[in-house]
């Protein structure tokens, strides 16, 4: 019984990740509005470029020459952050209620960080591509992938470091 209680958060996290992944696989731009809408809003704040929503495509910006489509929603990163936080830190809590709250907080952090990081990734890809296109003769896909991996991996490890630091502060009373 005790073992089941200890393992429950991990099983639940995997179930949530699986359900999100399944939803993402068949989701349209309208279905992903909670991710695409705030992301394009942030891109507009960062660049000033305007987006228009096109049914079946996503958010299109003629100024930046980009379309924020379902594949750009960043839901994989959201799942990664959620799983990393739950699997990495849930065992630091002893009470079941604290573990449950930490899971909810992990989901919120995963959602919020995905919106910010994804907007930074899209703006970064666009800027880096403009800067490197001629000197390195790289295609947009390569630049997009490289900037994406760099931003996602750095943010993921930075988030883990921040949460680790918060736990360390919690352990040492000042």
């Amino acid at each position, binding site marked *: 019984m005790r073992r089941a209680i200890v393992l429950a958060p991990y099983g639940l996290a995997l179930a949530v990740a699986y359900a999100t*992944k399944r939803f993402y696989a068949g989701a349209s731009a309208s279905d992903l509005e909670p991710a695409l809408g705030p992301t394009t809003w942030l891109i507009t704040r960062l660049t000033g470029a305007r987006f228009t929503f096109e049914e079946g495509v996503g958010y299109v910006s003629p100024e930046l020459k980009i379309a924020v489509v379902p594949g750009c929603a960043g839901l*994989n990163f959201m*799942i*990664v952050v959620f*799983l*990393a*936080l739950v*699997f*990495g*830190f849930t*065992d630091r809590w002893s009470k079941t209620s604290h573990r449950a709250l930490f899971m909810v907080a992990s989901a919120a952090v995963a959602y919020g960080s995905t919106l910010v990081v994804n907007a930074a990734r899209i703006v970064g890809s666009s800027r880096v591509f403009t800067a490197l296109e001629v000197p390195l003769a790289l295609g947009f896909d*390569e630049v997009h*992938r*490289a900037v994406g*991996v*760099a931003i*996602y*991996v*750095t943010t*993921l*490890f930075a*988030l*883990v*470091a921040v*949460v*680790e630091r918060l736990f360390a502060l919690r352990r040492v009373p000042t």
Partner: protein
Amino acid sequence: MRRARPWVAAAGSYLALTVVLPWCNGAGSNPGFLRHALWVIGLSSVIGGALLLAVGARMSCRRFPD
């Protein structure tokens, strides 16, 4: 081991979602997938390694000051 757990969880879930799961779903037959996987594994190893070195150096500086 306990301190390493979050880092292992982060690296594991990242690689699972970006490389392992797409490969299990049949993306391996796509000719562009190997290139994608090499980009992801190569670049994330370089960045992850640099961050681990930085964290390790900081920890050893704290443990053995001067």
